[in-house]
Structures are given as C-alpha cells and as structure tokens.
C-alpha cells in the first residue's frame, strides 16, 4: 500500500510551491518531489523592449530582491553598450548593493530562517516565528531589527529613487549623484549596520553554537550533500557580491572552474523536467546525471554556504575573523551542511556591513562624474552579480537600436533547484520512518528547504512566519488517513 504525503501550498514562495512525498508499504519514503508550479515568461516578453528599460522591467521578477536584478541587468547593459562606468558610479552601485545585502540578509535571519534555531525546531508551532524570536531575545531587539531595516532601506531609496524597484541603473553609470548630506546618512547607516552585524553573530554564537544539540543537528547526514559550489570572487579569491569572476570548487574544495560572465554558456546549462516549471541548472563541464551528488554529478550549489566554500576568504577584517571561526568549527572547507547556510549568511551580513562602511566613507561617492555615455553600437551583453540567494546571470542580444531580440536569465534559486529538491528528499527519507509524520518532523523537512532562503520569490517576505503547510496522507484507495494543517 503506497501512501502519498502532500505538502501544499508552501506559501512563502512567489506563487506556489509544493512537495509530494510517497511512502512505501513500510511507511518509509519511496519518492519525493519538490515542484515549482509558476511561470511568468519574462524572457519572452523582454523581446521587443528597449535595452535600457531592462533594469526596471527585470526587477519585477522579484520585489524582495529587485536590487539584484536591477544590478545584474545594469551590468549587462555596460557590456551590451561597451561602456565602462566612471569609478564613482561603480562605487555608488556597490554602495547601494551592500546596503541591500544588509537589509535582505537581516530579514531572513530574524523573520524566516532564524526562528527554527532561536526558538527551536521542537517549540510549539505558534512560537516558531518572529514573535517567538522576540519572546526569546526581547522586544527591544525586534524594534532594533525593524529600525535598522528601515534606516538601510531609506539609504537605498536616496540613491535609487525607490527601494522596491530602484531606478538608478543606466549603461555606463548611475542616474543620480550623491550629495555630502546623503553621504552623512550613509556613514551613519553603515556604522549602525556594522554594530548590528556584530550583535547578530553574537546571538548566533550564544543561541546556536553553544547548544550542542543544534551543532550536532547542523552536522547531521540528513542535511548534508557533497556537491560543487559556485560563487563570485575578487582577484584574491575573496567573496565579492558585485563584481569578479565565477569560481567553482568541487566536493573536495579544490578549484575546478573559474570563468567570466561572458563564458557562462560554456559552463552552465539547464535541464527540464516535466513535473516542474523551474529549470534545473548543472555544470556543463560535468554533465547532468540526475538528482545525485558527488564529483560525477553536475549538480552545484550557490548562495551563502556555496560562496564561502568557493572563496578563500573575506575582504574585510571582522568578516574574515568570522569566516575562520566558521571553518574551524565545522571541520574545514568545504562545508557540505545545508543548515550552515544560516551561519554563512550572517558572516556575509558582516561583510556587507563592513563593505558598506568602507564605501560610505569613500570621498569619491560624492563626485559628479557618474555616467559615461555609450558611443558604440549594441549587440550582446552579459551581466552577473551575486544575489543574496546566489549567482544571477542576465544575458541580452539586441538589434543595432538596442531593442532586445533575445534575453536569457538564470536566477539565483534556479542554480540551487536540483540541490533543494535533493535536500527535501533526503530530509524526508531521514526523518520520516515507519509512517510516523508529525508537526515537528514536518518542520524539519521544511528546514531543509528554508535554509537556502529560496526566492521564487519570497521566502524572505515579511512577518511572522513559518510556511503554512498542509500535509495529507492517503491510502492506496485515495482515502485520507490523516490530515495535518498548520
């Protein structure tokens, strides 16, 4: 008698996410599928649009990470129109981008992923949310999180017009100069962000790392996959979110690829399955051999865990210190434990805050030369950034007037899609035994998924939260044996 377990809907996704699990006669997991039943077709309706409109059109892919699409697109326009932005413009873009990383990573830790650790996976479900976090760490902390995010998001609006769907990006630079009053606001916000990042790492240290059960759980096989990892690095192989080369390390942590955005088609390919609208990325050099791990499988991973694995360090001092502690504690590089994403995300929060601070204090950001005007005929352009949730590629072809004839987008979570599907299945197999499924086990399956902060989009949305999930177990005749709604 086969039984089916359906987790539907997973609502902190853009549109809809669904997990189907089939149990065998012993009540153990037979098959598990992670489905994304959503498609809006941006790549098609981009055709015919003016290239310079793409940073604003593609930001509508995601209102939680609009700045990531906006920047990847703007960089693709630099390449398309063959124009190099002035140094001040590049710094303003990275300034805005660093601010964006601070508020976005903070949202995930405090509102979405963090509650599982801070409140605990076995806490009553009504407490596994931001309110539970506040109960544990205090209302003042809640006000601090809301206040910090408001302050940092106001900075993005100063430079970008709007924080949700900013408009500063143009080929060859940015649309607006910053004043010295603006700079003072950035300096104040950046100093606040650094203190906030210190405090967040301290919370993680006190609540998670000092709890042996949590550490054991991070290290457990249920949440471990040995795959390739991809992330952007600077010339010294340190993590960079805004610019650099893509570096891929193998399951052994050794460099296997290093390439520039223009070469992405040589190294990244997409596999199609009939049961999901999402396409599954893999390394072309290795090939697709299904949803499996190891050196022979082209499945790879992006986002915080992967970025730290793919780099050899952080470019700022406090983040570097945290990076070293992370690998010392978890047994060296690479770390294959999916749940370590939460810690890695806070180390990146520190880097983003320190980088924001460096740029905010740079006298060049208030210079007036922030645009170079394109002089060449456009034909093809590539842009890549690290979005909070992973590597993001934009690739456009245009006619000589700069009208899009072809657009190709590989979005952050798509890179992770195969590994997420594997993580959900492995967690389900490890945790569901002999037909026993309860709320706590369901949350543990969810955590395999939540650690990636998937952005279809909006795992990073908003308020209190765990994913409202409905789980139905059927017998072979289609009769409902058990229903758990939460």
């Amino acid at each position, binding site marked *: 008698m086969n039984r089916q377990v359906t987790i539907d809907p997973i609502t902190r996704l853009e549109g809809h996410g669904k997990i189907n699990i089939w149990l065998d006669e012993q009540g153990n997991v037979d*098959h598990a599928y992670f489905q994304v039943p959503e498609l809006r077709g941006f790549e098609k309706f981009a055709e015919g649009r003016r290239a310079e409109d793409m940073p604003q059109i593609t930001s509508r892919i995601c209102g939680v990470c609009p700045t990531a699409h906006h920047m990847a697109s703007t960089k693709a326009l630099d390449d398309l129109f063959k124009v190099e932005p002035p140094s001040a413009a590049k710094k303003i873009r990275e300034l805005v981008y660093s601010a964006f990383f601070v508020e976005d990573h903070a949202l995930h830790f405090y509102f979405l992923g963090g509650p599982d650790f801070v409140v605990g996976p076995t806490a009553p479900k009504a407490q596994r949310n931001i309110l539970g976090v506040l109960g544990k760490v205090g209302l003042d902390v809640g006000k601090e999180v809301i206040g910090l995010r408001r302050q940092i998001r106001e900075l993005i609006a100063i430079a970008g017009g709007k924080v949700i769907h900013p408009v500063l990006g143009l080929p060859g630079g940015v649309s607006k100069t910053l004043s010295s009053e603006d700079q003072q606001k950035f300096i104040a916000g950046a100093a606040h962000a650094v203190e906030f990042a210190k405090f967040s790492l301290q919370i993680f240290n006190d609540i998670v790392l000092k709890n042996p059960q949590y550490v054991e759980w991070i290290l457990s096989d249920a949440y471990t996959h040995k795959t390739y990892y991809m992330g952007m690095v600077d010339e010294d192989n340190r993590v960079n979110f805004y610019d650099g080369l893509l570096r891929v390390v193998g399951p052994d942590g050794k460099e296997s690829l290093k390439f520039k955005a223009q070469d992405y088609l040589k190294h990244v390919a997409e596999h199609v399955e009939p049961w999901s609208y999402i396409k599954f990325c893999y390394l072309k050099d290795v090939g697709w051999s299904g949803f499996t791990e190891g050196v022979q499988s082209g499945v790879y991973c992006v986002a915080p865990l992967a970025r730290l694995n793919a780099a050899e360090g952080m470019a700022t001092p406090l983040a570097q210190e945290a990076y070293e502690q992370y690998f010392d504690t978890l047994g060296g590089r690479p770390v294959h434990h999916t749940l370590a994403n939460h810690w890695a995300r806070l180390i990146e929060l520190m880097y983003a805050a320190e980088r924001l601070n460096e740029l905010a204090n740079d006298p060049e950001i208030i210079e007036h030369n922030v645009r170079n005007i394109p002089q060449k005929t456009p034909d093809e352009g590539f842009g890549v950034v690290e979005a909070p949730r992973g590597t993001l590629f934009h690739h456009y072809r245009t006619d000589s007037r700069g009208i899009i004839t072809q657009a*190709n987008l590989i979005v952050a979570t798509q890179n992770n899609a195969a590994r997420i599907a594997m993580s959900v299945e492995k967690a389900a197999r490890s945790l569901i035994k002999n037909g026993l499924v309860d709320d706590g086990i369901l949350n543990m399956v969810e955590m395999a998924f939540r650690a990636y902060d998937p952005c279809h989009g909006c795992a990073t949305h908003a308020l209190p939260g765990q994913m409202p999930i409905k789980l139905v177990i059927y017998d072979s005749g289609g009769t409902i044996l058990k229903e758990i709604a939460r």
Partner: protein
Amino acid sequence: MSKPKVGFYWCASCGGCEEAVVDLAEKIIDVVGLVDIVFWPVALDFKRSDMEKMKDGEMAVGFVNGAIRTSEQFEMAELMRRKSQCLIAFGSCAHLGGVPGLANLYDREAILRRVYQEAPSVVNPENIRPAVDTHVSGVNLSLPEFWRTVKTLDQVVDVDYYLPGCPPPVKLIGDALGAILGGKLPPRGAVLAPDKALCSDCPRRDSKPEKVILKELRRPHEFLADSRECLLTQGILCMGPSTRSGCDAACIDANMPCTGCLGPTDEVRDFGAKALAAIATSIDSDDEAEINAIINQAVDPVGVLYRYSLPSSLLHRRATGNTDGGSSK
C-alpha cells in the same frame, strides 16, 4: 466590539507589494493592534480551508495583489471576493495588469517554447516541457495550467477600491488603512490616491512650460539629463503628464523619468492612449516627414506607454490566435 477582520492574498506578482506593507515598519505594530488579520499566507498559518469555512462577507476588507494568470489564482480571487465586504486591488498588477501583463504581447506557446526549448542555456534534446499531468516512477504529479491571457483583478471579480503603484507608495498604504479604520472611504470604485497628474506635484514643475514642445525624443542613456529641468522638455518620454500623483515623484528624484506605475487619473480609460496623445500634441512640426522622423525615435511604444497597463487597456492583448489549443482564458 471585536476588531475588523482583514485578509491578504497574492496572485501573479513579484512580492514587492508584500514588502511595501512591511515597509510600514514601526506603524505595522499599530495596525496589528487594530485589526484581526485572518488570512495572509506569506506571514501567517491560516489556510485556504480556513477561509472557505468563514461566512460570506466575514472579512471587512480583503487585499489582493498580482494579476490573474492561472485558474487557481482565479479561484482564490473569487473566494476573497465572497468573504470580503470590501475588496481592494492592491498594486499595479491587480489594478492594471502590471509588468507581467506585457506577456499579453505573446501567446502561451511562444512563451513555453522560448523558456524550455529555445533558451541558449537549455539542453533539452527530447523537447520535454512541464505538463499539467506527469506520470513518473509510478506516481502522478500535476501542475496548474496557466491561462493564455493575463487579466486584471476587476476583469474576473468585482473590485471596490484600487490602491495604485508598483508597489503602492507606503504613504498611500498608510492613508488607505487610516480611511478604512476611520470609516472614511470615498465612494465605491475609487482609486485611493490623489486625482491629479504627477506633473502638478513634480519638484521640476516650474521648469515645465505651459505647452511642452518636442523637437526630438531621446532615450535616458543617450545623454546626461539635467537634474533640475523637466525631463519631458529634455526629450525624454516621461509619463508624468498622464500618470496619477501619489509617489512624491520618487523616480524623478533619482533623475529618471516617470514610467506610469500609478496608472491614469479618473477621467482616463486607456493610459497608453492618453500618454500617446500627450506626446503627439507636443511635437513641434507641421511637416509630415519631420513628424514621422520624431515619432520613429519613440522605439517600443507599447513597452513604454503600456508598461503597467496592457491587460487593462482597450488593446487588452495582441491578437495572436489560439495557436496552442489550450484553455481560451
């Protein structure tokens, strides 16, 4: 007296509308104290089945963002309508169709072919496509079908009010919540934003002449726009004359043109037609060849004039024929 019940739901959207609610920041704590949020999938555990169990009209207000593209979104819009005394279309996509509404320029077959077969990164020798029903490894998996056409919320259910913008400005959201809680809503059908064009609130309005005269149209990346002068007079297609105010000219503050996300003012039925008329009457020439030359500088007029409003327009969608034989919706 019990607190009024409210619910939120999202359809084909990006999540920016949800973030805009969160951007109420400290004020959201006050709001939570005044209303009882009984449905908000992004944040709370209430299920569709919980809402189905409610009495019709049990919610005082329902907020729906996103356009309608799938049958499931249509069902949810109908359910929200039934359970809400007052239904608000929240944001450009629910209001006018939004940026995803540009998909109405292509048919479903072209979109699927592009994404799963023609994309340069796709390796798909067997031409596999996601299917509504799939039988794999002895089990059946299903996906929802998506409609041929993107629709606005009021094309599928009755809507009481509209909160415009991509996303709605935080101030308008705050004002709307204030009006709802204070029982001071305007007549049904209103757009909850000022009924005047953005130009009237623009910080650059003093540099805009009584009648704008265009000798040429220029694209934003082609020159360094002056940061104080009216963008339209500089030849940039700014949608300010046709667009409803309420955003504090945020894009213009960043020295970029208004793209029209708040949609038209009350008297205008079709945003793009109004914007086109505003531009056409500004062209300074009597010579047909010269007029054509200037007009030809306006590349991609549909993407510029109907950026947020194609599904709500008189055009609605490009006639592509029903080439794929699926649902006609």
